[in-house]
């Protein structure tokens, strides 16, 4: 069963206040983000809950949810490690860095470590091109990455 926590409910009130009442479906992305922050990923139950709040069908919610790459519909690791693979990072060796991290974590891109700690993902341009290569861990930026920095940073997320 899915239920928003009390803290989330307080947030929801604030989120809904941003949009005209008859356009409350605008709050869909913020609510999905909130649900994911709470559960780690978006469950079908969360989609039903959000749909009811915003007067849209659960199918509508799923349709929107699966359009955006930041939403996970399956469980992910505690830390989601993303490497930008777009051109500026590519010109600065992100391929090697990704390969290095794959070896280090013992998983391939798209996979989660058996201890459910890390999920490793490729990401398209993260808008930090002048500090390439770029990595994000749970949406926090880490820039000018090197293998040594990968070691240090992943260590800090233990």
């Amino acid at each position, binding site marked *: 069963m899915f239920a928003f926590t009390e803290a989330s409910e307080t947030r929801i009130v604030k989120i809904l206040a941003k949009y005209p009442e008859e356009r409350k479906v605008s709050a869909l992305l913020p609510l999905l983000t909130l649900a994911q922050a709470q559960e780690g990923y978006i469950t*079908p139950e969360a989609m039903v809950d959000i749909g009811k709040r915003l007067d*849209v*069908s659960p*199918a509508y919610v*799923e*349709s929107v949810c*699966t*359009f955006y790459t930041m939403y996970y519909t399956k469980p992910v690791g505690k830390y989601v490690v993303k490497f930008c693979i777009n051109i500026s990072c590519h010109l600065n060796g992100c391929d090697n860095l990704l390969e290095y991290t794959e070896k280090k974590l013992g998983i391939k891109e798209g996979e989660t470590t058996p201890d459910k700690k890390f999920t490793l993902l490729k990401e398209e341009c993260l808008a930090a091109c002048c500090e390439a290569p770029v990595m994000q861990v749970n949406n926090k930026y880490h820039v000018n990455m090197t293998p040594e920095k990968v070691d240090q940073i992943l260590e800090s997320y233990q």
Partner: protein
Amino acid sequence: MNTATQTDTVTLTIDGKTVTVPKGTVVVDAAKTVDIEIPVFCYHEKLGPFGCCRMCLVEVEKMPKLTTACTLAAGEGMVVKTNTDKVEKAQKGVLEFTLLNHPLDCPVCDKGGECPLQDNTFKFGPPDTRMEYNRFHRDKATPLSPVITIDRERCIACQRCTRYSDIIEKDQALVMLNRGFQNRVATFNDKPYDTRFSGNVIDICPVGALTNTDFRFTARAWDLTNANTLCGHCACNCNMTLGTRLNEMKRITTRPNDLVDDGWICDKARWGYDFTKSKNRITQPRKQGQAVSIQDACSEVAASLKKIVEAHGPQSVGFIGSGYGLNEDLYSYQKLFRQNLGTNNIDHKTYTDTPGLPVAHFDLLDVETSDLVVLIASDPTEELPILDLRLKKAMTRQGVQMVVLNDQQTLMDKYATQSLRYNVGTDGAVLAGLNAALQGQSAGSDLENKTGVSVDQLKTLAEKIKSAGKVCVIYNPAALTGSSVHILKQCLSTADGLAETTVGAMPAAPVTNSVGAMDMGILPDSYPGGVALSDGDTIKAKWGDTAPLEKGLSALEMIEKAKSGELKALVVYRSNPVVDFPSGHEVGEALKKLDLLVIHDMMETETAKLAQIVLPSNGPGFDEGTTTNVGGRVQLRTKGLTTDNPADWKIVSMIAKELGQETAPKDVHAVTAEIAEKVNGYQEIKRSAIRKQGKNRGAVASTNGASASDGVNTGNGLVLRVANVLFSHDKILDAESNLAHQFQPSTVHLHASDAATFGVKEGDEVRVTGNGHEVKAEVRVSNRCNPGGVVLPKVSDEQGVMSLAEAGKAVSWVTIRK
């Protein structure tokens, strides 16, 4: 709304041809008017411009890029070219992209032969592809629902189906998931897509991605014989194409008629025709259970009726028909009973109603052009599904307002600007209150206490009606209690008398030809065309000097008199009183007392089991004639299947002949012609005039009944409301039906306060008792009706809910036991 007609036009040139079209017309549609085909996939005129498939790129002078003709409104002086090298290259390019990942499995594809992708490729496409890679593989042929198969490999992502679900059905049940080339049509969590209108996506799919599971691999499209016919289920009378092969129903598809169905049919129309091949069809005339020839059966019926009339007088025989008959069949029957047997013991219903309206009879299209719709006691979603779609369209896309007045919650409440929920059984008081409000008077102060609706609410509604230019009142007479329909008609007259308001109405009884049955005089107190018995001159002029003028028995009175022995013979046509009449459980005993019970029906029923003589009725698919829909539109129902059994009107004619009728119509058209000659409002109804889109019949004489008081009988417990269900498990949708997955369990809906009183909770299995009868049901605690009432959806014949209703009483009372 929109009463001002858009007369502005624009003139443009397409491939050198000059075209003048109404402003707002998109170039694709403008081109059609001069026979220029601009290929499309995603564009569908009912869904509006979308522009995603890029198939309709055209060159327009002064525009630097090619543009999509489906999204481009025709402009004055615009010069469009659809056949330049640039356009042809673009078309070939788009088709190459479209076919890139589309499997070329045309030989085993059900869309073959009627596939826009095939056709467009043939006409506009490249000869081959330059694609050298494996196509993107997806699951082949998986069930989207028990009746729809989806082949996602064939999908070209035109989004017609998902837009249909969003814009037309308003359910958003079918959506696009994911994005880019990973996108796919799906439902939430892969649940079945089983709405009431799901099948239309099959017809609008421009490829073979969505196919009819029942039809799959049973015939090629070009091998079908197609009949342009009408649906024979609800009273919308949607147009549809019946595809047959070797005299067997294969499939049903839409046959757009904007004046009726707006291009859609419901799933009951599409998959509710298994009865045409059911083993429970009555195909053999029989007498006392023994097969006889149709001639012998008719002779027997005539002889027995004659004998009984001679012995006991004309009042000892009666006819119970139904709105399931065609106008021609019903007309013939009333004529038989009135002219040949001399009785007005003729009826087709168990509720009160009178023919005609004191105001204009609005057609379905009027819903869209009204400012305000007042929906009374009607549940279009379950009763008249295509009206549901039309209302949703009007409310969400055309700015029409709607006020709902009902004793139960329906899906229409969501689209209403005001929903008034009166207590079950208090419709008379509420309507009287509304009438008072319309006259600027105030209903009694106890109104709210009694009905749950306040004087102020009715005042607000009255104001809305007064300030709206055009008001369309839609009401279900079958869901009004007692003689409330008379009060409703007074309201109509009052509202019509208001200075600024034009009022029209649509009597929305759910049965196929309910309006036709009223018009054809299947009534104990009215001849065809609404001619009242008091109008002896007209009656005699039209139906001869011996035409009976004394009021006949109503259907319920006939059952009563059968029980008391006063009625000796009854012909029941396309009706199953044992199940469908109030106190149905007592009907059987009453009918057993008759000297003669003749059942003329399409399917074996509980009532047919009691008959001495059973006559076959061919029914939809096999029959031919006219029906009159809720909008008063008379249309032609043609046959797609043949049978050796005579048509219903013909059987009546054979009986009449035995009774001494000298003339007989030579075919069904002769009956239609006689109707045109004799029935008020039907003068213009000729086969040629109605063939295409049907025609509104003119006014039928309207005589309002006595404004009986809204006196409601009292009782103990909860007031019963039987609700209609579209997919009811009955004789038409039997256990083998394609729609069996839509059958619902027996449920009883009551308010939380009443649930507490009766000590029951959500999900409890209970017995609902009343009128000496008991129905098993599962409890649903909800706000579906106000406290004091209880809603029982009629989910099946077996459930027997109608027996809880007490025949002849305005309201019935039930109690709930665990």
